[in-house]
């Protein structure tokens, strides 16, 4: 798929999704999830964000889309008493809420423009009322606040702060931010595939623990399905995904065309 050379900048995954929905002129209540997910993934592949924080937020949404997509591809359980909720519902609600705030922020912008035409005047207390420096009675302000109360407040702040420090990670010392290399993981999955032929998604994750790595691995799997190099089965919902590697060689990401 061809993508415009200059990528638009989006504030976040919801912003991007809304844009795609509008661009495709589709109903937000009935998002063609397959199409939108594909375009979404195309977009984030083009993103050259060095900012892992931002990138990971886009990736989390990618994973959500993929999850919804896979749930929609599954046949709905037949004899369920309760009617199955549309897997898209939660996302739709989020999108609508976000869209609503985009709408009101536009309204507020107009209001601000109108209001900026109004001028105020700075105080002009006559000089002779020289004692106008508003007296603040500090003693009254402090009131019955005691030192021990102040101490208590400080202690709780410090406690909160040490709670925030993850004791496990903080022991690692300085953590170098790790670049997650999609092409490397892409190759790894295939090498694993050649060695094992049939394996489970969970097997791939054994050595990988960060959320980012899980997401990237999952993206890699999706690419390989698209390329027809693997096939996946999942007998029951939430069951581990069984992967069968069908090719016998390793293809690089460049060769695969991205």
């Amino acid at each position, binding site marked *: 798929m061809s993508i415009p050379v200059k990528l638009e900048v989006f504030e*976040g995954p919801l*912003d991007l999704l809304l844009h795609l929905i509008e661009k495709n*002129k589709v*109903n937000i209540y009935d998002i063609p999830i397959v199409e939108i997910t594909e375009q979404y993934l195309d977009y984030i592949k083009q993103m050259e964000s060095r900012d892992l924080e931002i990138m990971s937020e886009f990736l989390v949404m990618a994973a959500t889309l993929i999850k919804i997509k896979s749930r929609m591809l599954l046949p709905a359980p037949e004899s369920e008493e309760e009617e199955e909720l549309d897997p898209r519902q939660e996302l739709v609600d989020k999108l609508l809420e976000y869209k*609503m705030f985009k709408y009101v*922020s536009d309204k*507020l912008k107009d209001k601000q423009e109108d209001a900026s035409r*109004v*001028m105020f005047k700075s*105080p002009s207390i006559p000089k002779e009322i020289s004692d106008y420096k508003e007296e603040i009675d500090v003693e009254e302000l402090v009131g019955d606040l005691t030192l021990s109360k102040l101490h208590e407040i400080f202690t709780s702040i410090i406690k909160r702060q040490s709670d925030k420090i993850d004791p496990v990670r903080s022991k690692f010392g300085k953590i170098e931010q790790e670049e997650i290399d999609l092409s490397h993981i892409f190759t790894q999955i295939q090498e694993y595939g050649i060695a094992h032929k049939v394996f489970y998604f969970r097997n791939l994750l054994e050595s990988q623990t960060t959320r980012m790595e899980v997401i990237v691995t999952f993206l890699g799997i999706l690419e390989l399905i698209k390329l027809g190099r693997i096939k996946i089965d999942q007998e029951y919902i939430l069951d581990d995904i069984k992967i069968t590697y069908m090719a016998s060689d390793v293809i690089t990401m460049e060769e695969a065309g991205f």
Partner: protein
Amino acid sequence: MEIKLVEAQIEAILFTMGEAVELDRLAMAIDHDEDTARKIIQNMMDRYEDESRGICIIELDGAYQLCTKASMYETIIKITHIPKKHVLTEVLLETLSIIAYKQPITRMQIDAIRGVKSDHPVNKLLEYNLICELGRLDAPGRPILFGTTEEFLRCFGLQSLDSLPAVNPEKLEDFKLQAEEEAHQLTLDI
């Protein structure tokens, strides 16, 4: 006339102070109760509407301030340079509207609605004094709660939070209809 004198006093106070003056302080200064003070000010506000007046009284959350009428803008910029106010970017506006409508709200709740981290816009809005900390939520981690300031009301020409543009459920329905219409006009190629 006693009432005329009180009006003059209120005008003088608002003119001198420049900033918004709370009703209770005004009432105290003119030696009347708050109800009477409010009525007198309401009355004055009506009379400032006269087309020969270039200034008016605005209400900001129970405080009153003198300012020029918006229609005077063109004339004023002829004579004086008006410093540009902060231009709020989309991100800031978006974050600000979430805070305005959902206050008191924590940063995490803002993040959840926006789908992205909001530290930066929140700090910028604090810096511009458009939002402030309201305290901490009584929940694990005791996260900070944010809300809007008087400056926010002034900057957006709002009397109080009640005068925020309404977002009613009907509006959501509108979005729905709009989306459906658009969808009907197209043949989808899924």
